[in-house]
């Protein structure tokens, strides 16, 4: 590439560019992850993997709305025992492969991480339903998030990222818990709780009745979460939510993101990764910036 170098070091991993495939999007198989690496992703995150096979929620599981996307996949996955093979195929893509894992308690996270040895890093998806008690998720409980993060760190030597849910009063409190637990980075945000109803019949459309919003609609929410986390934490923040262009990536970085993830935008174009990196590279060159100059720039402007 004759244009600006976009390579970064993120929690000890070397990435050729900071545009990462987000969890749960085209990440069900090794060859699909490999394909996304080929489309220019700087790293890829797998579908969230659990300890037992899970079919996920009944269809409809995803809808495109005018403002974004609504999904309730329900964490379908073949379990770590079966996913191991896919992980090694994904590694042939030549970019870091981050295994997203989910569980209900620290032991379960440990079991899955051990079972998925060989990942470049682990992303803890703490957005799944709590083992005891309904209606809450692991990721809304700072004590549990800290324990899970600490357990994961004890289990592996590779970096541990913690993916945060925006469905809390104060995301910073959860981010701080992850940081205390030893997280190498936090990833924000997962989808925003939401719902759609069919006006012809009155039925909620998603098989699970409600789900999570992603895409353009959530970008301002994500920008604010990333802004707040950057301000409060000493570890890197990886920004995700509604990024579909290099401009969106720059905005997220200015809020404080060291790298960004792209999920729903593969809908428009699977080549989105190359598209964003070339736009980002041209932007940096035109402004004589490097990535470090723009990460957290909004904070420096406010402080001035």
């Amino acid at each position, binding site marked *: 590439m004759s244009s600006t170098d976009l390579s970064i070091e993120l929690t000890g991993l070397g990435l050729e560019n900071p545009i990462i495939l987000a969890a749960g999007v*085209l990440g069900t198989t090794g060859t699909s992850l490999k394909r996304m690496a080929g489309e220019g992703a700087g790293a890829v995150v797998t579908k969230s993997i659990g300890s037992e096979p899970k079919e996920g929620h009944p269809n409809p599981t*995803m809808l495109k709305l005018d403002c974004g996307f609504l999904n309730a*996949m329900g964490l379908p996955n073949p379990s770590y025992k079966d996913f191991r093979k896919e992980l090694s195929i994904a590694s042939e893509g030549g970019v870091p492969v981050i295994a997203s894992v989910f569980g209900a308690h620290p032991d379960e996270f440990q079991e899955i991480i051990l079972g998925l040895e060989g990942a470049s890093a682990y992303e803890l998806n703490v957005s799944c339903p709590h083992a005891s008690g309904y209606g809450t998720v692991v990721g809304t409980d700072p004590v549990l998030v800290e324990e899970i993060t600490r357990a994961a760190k004890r289990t592996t030597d590779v970096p541990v990222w913690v993916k945060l849910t925006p469905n809390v009063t104060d995301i910073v409190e959860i981010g701080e818990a992850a940081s205390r637990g030893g997280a190498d980075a936090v990833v924000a945000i997962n989808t925003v709780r939401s719902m759609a109803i069919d006006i012809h019949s009155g039925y909620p459309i998603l098989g699970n009745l409600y789900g999570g919003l992603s895409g353009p609609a959530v970008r301002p929410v994500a920008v604010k979460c990333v802004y707040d986390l950057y301000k409060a934490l000493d570890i890197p923040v990886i920004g995700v939510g509604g990024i579909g262009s290099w401009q969106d990536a720059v905005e997220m970085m200015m809020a404080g993101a060291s790298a960004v993830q792209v999920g729903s935008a593969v809908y428009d174009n699977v080549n989105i990764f190359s598209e964003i990196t070339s736009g980002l590279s041209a932007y940096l060159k035109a402004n004589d910036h490097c990535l470090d100059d723009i990460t957290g720039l909004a904070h420096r402007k406010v402080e001035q």
Partner: protein
Amino acid sequence: MRPVNAEITEIIRETPTIITLRTDIELDAAPGQFVMVWVRGLDEIPMALSHPGSITVQRVGEATEALSRLEVGDSIGIRGPFGNGFEVKGEGRGDGDGGGGGNGEEYGDEKGNKIMVIAGGVGGAPLLPLAQQAQSLGLDVTILIGARTADELLFEEYFSKCGAFSVATDDGSKGHHGFITGAMDQFNLAGFDQFYICGPELMMKSVLDILQAAGLEAMAQLSLHRYFKCGIGVCGACTIDPSGLRVCRDGPVFSGDLLIKSELGKYHRDATGKKIMF
């Protein structure tokens, strides 16, 4: 898009296990494109369009059973059309190069004009509009349909009006006795410019093997069935090995030369993503 409301206007009993539901909506779709059919409160499943406002459903499980119980005046939700659909070469919207096989030269003059449609079972649903379109474009159409038994032959009457027509049944109750591949023997395959195939996976694999043996795999278009969740190319449930292509978005129609080097006929994945061997 949110599901569009489609009211059932007519129900046609095609075979003992297959019905066609005609609805009050019309979709502008290419042959081979599909819709996601929402049986409210139960499930949403992919279905080909057998006509701009119709789906043709074989009863195999809970959702198709529920569709089979619907009555005129009931309604379903429809998202789509999605996917790529078949490419009709005669129409000139392809890359023009169907001649990957060895015998392209001899038939260069009429390239794209002579096609064979091979339908197994409910695989006839996406192929009927294809055969009808090809016929209206003036292509020379040969149709082969197969089923377990005579009663299960789908769209016999409509297909027979689209061109030269033959039938195969596993039990010999009509036409060629045996698999559809056996009925292919009577034709000089090299004389065809394009093959359109949909049916049970192992049938498609056998047909493709025969075409490959004749060096014709690049001239085949096959519509694939994989487990769909989102249906719009985002979740990754339907991707195939080793290309990582999405059946719901990059497909469901793929060329034979791509599929010959794929998981076709070896395995597919269930709702969890686990491989299931054929």
